[in-house]
């Protein structure tokens, strides 16, 4: 008998809509096994970051001493470090696949397009069930126009999807001048899933030391409202599955996002705060809620509160805005 929490995401059978999202906790098999034991439907492995590889290259160079002595050896050293990192990642995928029964989704962070498409093939060969492209293209490069930035997304997707047969999802930011159109167009580009949204580094300022520092890295409970809005608006307008990410700190939020139309929700900050047992707690609470509501499956209520395809989102938004603020009259 099929489990009531069963869902299908990107064509993958998941026993739960709760996915352990890509983070430092998903970079070793011991943790992945615990995550599976806690009841997650799938895991997304820690993302391979091009910038992290570069930092490792810088760190390794310091250990080696003067460059001049070894110039010929060090000339393509960054390539070797990159290859070593990628090999370790492929080993992680293979080990994870050998140890787990739930789907294993690999993740790569893409800054440049051509270097990663070949690696995508190797990820597939290592056994990954799917590939999540974390499209981390900061909208702050003043040399690029908006359309240049957007074109890079499609170019990356095109190159990667042409190389693999496993399902590909993309994780994007909300920073587009027409996010709705971008979500719609990306969904039609051949991908099977889209994760809304990734989190950029946020700066903060220490006014005592008068320095710029990093803001807290974990999400806040209220952060879910952004993906909630866009999933609700776009769930009936896209050609791929939608997954929610950021701000999911309680089981009710997970249910809200699924009511809005999310196929799955990704948990990261919660796992740091409460440990993997939070997955098990959420599964239990969601199942209990479903029983109360007499829902036999996730499909029975998923998307129930999504904005219908006949509604123009722009007009809907304006109407809602007017209605909400009219309630604030004195």
């Amino acid at each position, binding site marked *: 008998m099929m489990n009531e929490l069963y869902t299908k995401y990107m064509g993958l059978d998941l026993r739960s809509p709760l996915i352990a999202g890509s983070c430092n906790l998903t970079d070793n098999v011991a943790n992945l096994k615990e995550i599976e034991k806690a009841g997650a439907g799938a895991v997304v492995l820690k993302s391979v970051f091009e910038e992290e590889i*570069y930092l490792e*290259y*810088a*760190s390794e*160079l*310091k250990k*080696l001493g003067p*460059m*001049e*002595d*070894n*110039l*010929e*050896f*060090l*000339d*393509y*050293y*960054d*390539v*070797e470090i990159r*290859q*070593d990192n*990628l090999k370790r990642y492929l080993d992680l995928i293979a080990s994870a696949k050998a140890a787990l029964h739930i789907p294993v989704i690999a993740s790569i962070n893409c800054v*440049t*397009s*051509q*270097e990663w498409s*070949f690696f995508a*093939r190797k990820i597939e060969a290592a056994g990954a069930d799917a590939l999540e492209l974390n499209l981390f293209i900061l909208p702050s490069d003043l040399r690029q126009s908006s359309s240049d930035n957007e074109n*890079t997304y499609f*170019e990356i997707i095109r190159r990667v999807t042409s190389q693999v047969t496993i399902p590909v999802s993309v994780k994007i930011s909300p920073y587009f001048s027409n996010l709705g159109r971008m979500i719609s167009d990306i969904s039609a580009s051949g991908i099977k899933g889209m994760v809304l949204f990734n989190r950029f580094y946020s700066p903060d300022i220490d006014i005592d030391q008068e320095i710029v520092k990093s803001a807290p890295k974990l999400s806040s409970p209220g952060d879910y409202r952004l993906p909630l809005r866009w999933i609700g608006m776009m769930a009936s307008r896209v050609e791929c599955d939608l997954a929610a990410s950021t701000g999911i700190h309680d089981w009710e939020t997970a249910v809200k996002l699924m009511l809005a139309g999310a196929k799955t929700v990704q948990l990261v900050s919660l796992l740091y705060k409460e440990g993997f047992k939070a997955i098990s707690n959420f599964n239990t609470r969601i199942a209990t809620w479903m029983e109360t509501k007499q829902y036999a499956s996730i499909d029975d209520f998923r998307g129930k509160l999504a904005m219908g395809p006949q509604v123009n989102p722009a007009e809907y938004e304006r109407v809602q805005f007017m209605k909400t603020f009219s309630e604030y009259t004195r």
Partner: protein
Amino acid sequence: MSIDPETIKKERSAGWREALRAKTKNKDRIAIERVHMPELEPEIRVHHQDREVNRGLTLAQASLEASRCMDCVNPTCIEGCPVSINIPKFVKYIENGDILNAASTLKETNALPAVCGRVCPQEKQCESRCFYVEKLHKPSVAIGHLERFAADFERDSGNCNIPETLPPNGIKVATVGSGPAALSFAGDMVKYGYDVTVFEALHEIGGVLKYGIPEFRLPNAIVDFEIENLRKMGIKFVTNFIVGRTASFDDLKEEGFQGFFIGSGAGLPRFMEIPGENYNGILSSNEYLTRVNLMGANSDESDTPVLRGKNVAVIGGGNTAMDSVRTALRLGAEKATIIYRRSEVEMPARVEEVKHAKEEGVEFMTLCNPVEYFADKNGRVNRMRVVRMGLGEPDASGRRRPIVLEGSEFDLHVDLVIVAVGVSPNPLVPASLPGLKVSRWGTLIVDEDKMQTSLPEMFAGGDIVRGGATVILAMGDGRRAAEHMHAFLETERRGDEGTK
């Protein structure tokens, strides 16, 4: 290992040196232009793998060049030499017409002077520290050319000085490998009186000197002559012997070997792991050069001829890339191109090699990097896709970081590609000695002063420690290892005697 300043001072004040300095005023020395090394014409040499490009200085040229040296009170050139050759002394011997003593001076610290005179990047070492460069901003004294001259003169004279060795002490030591690090180590250890055996896996002694460096840069006959001198000093050579397979280290210890120098090199090729790199016609530079230099696979009579191409691309910018691309020309390539992702200024290759390559017709496509290869229906490479690169901010190495220019790809027709992007250490020895500390990259971790590994009786140097280095740096490692292994074994011996 550096020369004692008091020794330098004492030797400088020798009568003949003072007389030589007095003979010519410094301003007249400075007025002499640096000698130009005679070279075989490019249109001739490009058809011959075994004809040396540099023809060597004549006695007159060497003498005149040597007279440019001002015999500095504080010879900073010595500090630039990884094996601390007494440069002013040998140069002044040449000026004085005493070439054999010049050669003997070289051999006090350098087991392979004819080799170093040909392959050292002097412009980055001794010559970069020359007074002319540092203070006058003029071309340095041609120390490398003079070193080669003295070594060649001695060889041709038939009066080779064999350095003296101390009486045998009965202690056996071994090297694993016979490249420059191991030969340099062996040369010093035999002088200390040790019974030295050099074990080599291949059928030829010399390591990278034979399999890596083509004959148009370093004739095998030169290498063989240097090795023969080492043999005359009492060093034993055993070929076709893989330490760790033919015999284990324990086996050798049972035979009485008490110290080991690991100089097994870095012969594992590296590739770029890009699509299509597995197609036929794409070789590592290791394979390409070994086949030609060591196996004679460029010969028409070879049973296993090396692949030839009309349109050859070599990926990389170091000396190995230059050797590969120039070999390809000599093997009949109509077009031979270097593809390098940074600019020419950043190329690691010796300036002279790049100059020679250009003279011979090698084309240079800098700021380009391959991203994919394509093949014909037989699986032989016939096209490569290349992307243009820009140079960003300096990376951690201080050199500008190569950055892909998205969308700038273009295709080139090729039928042979040589990948010369670096090498990795030979994994056999670390695999044979589980107690040996090894870095993430497979290099042996050593005390950098003593070159001693985590196993006290094992010392190491050269590419197996550095990952990849020049001949002279490897030799410097060998010398340091010899000095400290000698100290270690002396301590062990005294300890044993104390307990008897």
